């Protein structure tokens, strides 16, 4: 193991962390506000990936614009899903909420398989940024794009939550929905907004998926399971926690697959062994608050 190969593995892992963070940040925002685990978040990402892919292959639209359009479309789609379906299960028991989003995830995944076949596609996008070369370490341009967009998305979500009126309302509704309602906040609208923002993040992440990975119907499922581990690592609802969780997971995965023989086949295992150890010591994740 040389210094260069180690640095290469670390830097590449950190760019993958940008993708993980983009997906996990949207998910943790929705979970934090509504206390619903949205299993369909992965399918939102998958739809975003397909949209960016088509915009590029059919209309030659640059993935920069493609991922923005995907974000907006998936954000709108989330609003439709919330109004038509999820709003009705908010009052149900926890297991019914869980099953509701699981059902939605299974439905979207299989519709995608029926309509578009399970075959993986490659976008063959041009490198959007020039590759970065630093004393023997090369980072491909699209990995830079992923890291940059992931970082921007994180800053955007953090800004919305911390420095806007809607962010304050969302945090209030998440702390105590009933009290927020009495104070004149439209909690239903706030929950919907959190789904729309989560959906926007998922759509943009879908664009990143199209740049970095294969586009196929099951791509979201793989990523959302990792995102669950990440947001639990960081503490549910904690956006900076999701960023750190994403970095930890991406590094752990990248380093094992590079330096442990046969380490690439461990898959989710790494994520979850990590998670188990953290939850043993800190039942609310690394940066989580006590929740009831």
């Amino acid at each position, binding site marked *: 193991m040389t210094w260069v190969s180690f640095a290469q593995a670390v830097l590449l892992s950190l760019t993958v962390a940008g993708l993980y963070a983009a997906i996990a940040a949207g998910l943790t925002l929705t979970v934090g506000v509504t206390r619903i685990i949205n299993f369909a978040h992965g399918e939102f990402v998958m739809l975003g990936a397909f949209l960016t892919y088509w915009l590029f292959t059919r209309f030659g639209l640059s993935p920069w614009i493609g991922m923005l359009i995907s974000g907006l479309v998936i954000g709108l789609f989330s609003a439709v899903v919330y109004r038509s379906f999820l709003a009705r299960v908010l009052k149900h028991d926890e297991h019914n909420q869980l099953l509701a989003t699981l059902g939605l995830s299974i439905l979207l995944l299989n519709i995608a398989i029926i309509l578009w076949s399970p075959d993986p596609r490659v976008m063959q996008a041009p490198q959007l940024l020039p590759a970065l070369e630093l004393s023997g370490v090369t980072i491909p341009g699209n990995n830079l794009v992923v890291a940059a967009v992931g970082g921007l998305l994180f800053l955007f979500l953090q800004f919305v939550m911390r420095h806007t009126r809607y962010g304050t309302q969302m945090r209030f509704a998440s702390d105590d929905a009933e009290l927020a309602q009495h104070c004149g906040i439209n909690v239903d609208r706030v929950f919907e907004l959190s789904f729309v923002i989560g959906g926007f993040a998922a759509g943009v992440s879908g664009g990143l998926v199209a740049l970095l990975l294969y586009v196929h119907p099951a791509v979201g499922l793989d990523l959302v399971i990792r995102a669950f581990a990440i947001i639990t690592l960081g503490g549910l609802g904690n956006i900076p926690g999701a960023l750190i969780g994403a970095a930890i997971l991406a590094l752990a995965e990248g380093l094992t697959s590079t330096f442990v023989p046969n380490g690439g*086949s461990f898959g989710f295992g790494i994520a979850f062994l990590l*998670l188990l150890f953290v939850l043993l010591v800190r039942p609310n994740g690394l940066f989580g608050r006590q929740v009831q």
Partner: protein
Amino acid sequence: MMGLSGRLLTYIAVAVSFVAVAMSGNGFFIQAALGIAISAILALSWDILSRTGQVSLGQSAFFGIGAYGSGILTPVIGAVFGWIVGILLCAVAAILIGLVTLRLRRLYFTIATLSFGLSMQVLIVMTPRITGGSTGIMPPVIMGASPSAQLMLITGFLIVSAIVSDIFLGDRFRPAFFMIRNNPALAASSGVPVVKTKILAFAVSGMIAGIAGACYAGLYGYVIPEDVFTPNWSVLPLAVSILGGMDTTLGPILGAVVLRVLEEVARHFVGGAGYQVVYGAVIIVFIIILPKGLVGGLTQLFRKRTRKAAPVAPAEAAS
């Protein structure tokens, strides 16, 4: 709640219909019934655990341990002991997992349990000497590979699981279980041994899921980690129980039948890839229309009927 005679009738009805399928000798129906029985057993195991408020997505861990345990041990110490030890192994794993997740709250618990099945998969891949790694193992097929004999045996296991489920719905355990689900602090201060009861539920649930896994391994004679530790085996019992009706014994069995029928219909129309679309659609429709499941919905309907039929019996009902 059903009385003893009602429960016996349920067991007999279930046993008779499964045995009738076994006797019919129709290959298609027997295979379908085998699938139904396995998902019903797995769903009962999930339901027992959920009655203490532990909403798990980790049944695949026990399903897989049961499949691997019985499959590896049967050639070494014989089928009977192999299965017994394999299922005890599930109990041990369940107790460990139960202890680890004891402090976790709601969503944290659910995600942690989801992680067990996936972590088990890695454990298997990392220990190829014992478990065959990613190439899997070939456990001996049970009952001389005769489908109708297999169905009879698995029906027996299903009835046993149903009886266990009813024991936990009986007077001895029911109040403690539901009190822990609704208010753990109140349960503890009322003298319910919360930790012990939760762990008991986990151990029993793990063993029953292990039986389902052992049956699966014994039926198909081929087990690979991706097959038995997939999250599908964790989602299936959840879907089946909620469709059929939670906190009942009949619910998971009924749910397994309904889901299988719908699956076959979808397979006919959609074909091999993507037939699971029906799972998603059914789940969503049921959650909106029948949140209490088939059994809950039927009970409500039945109550309305009897109330309309006998409007002047308030004194009797109150006494």
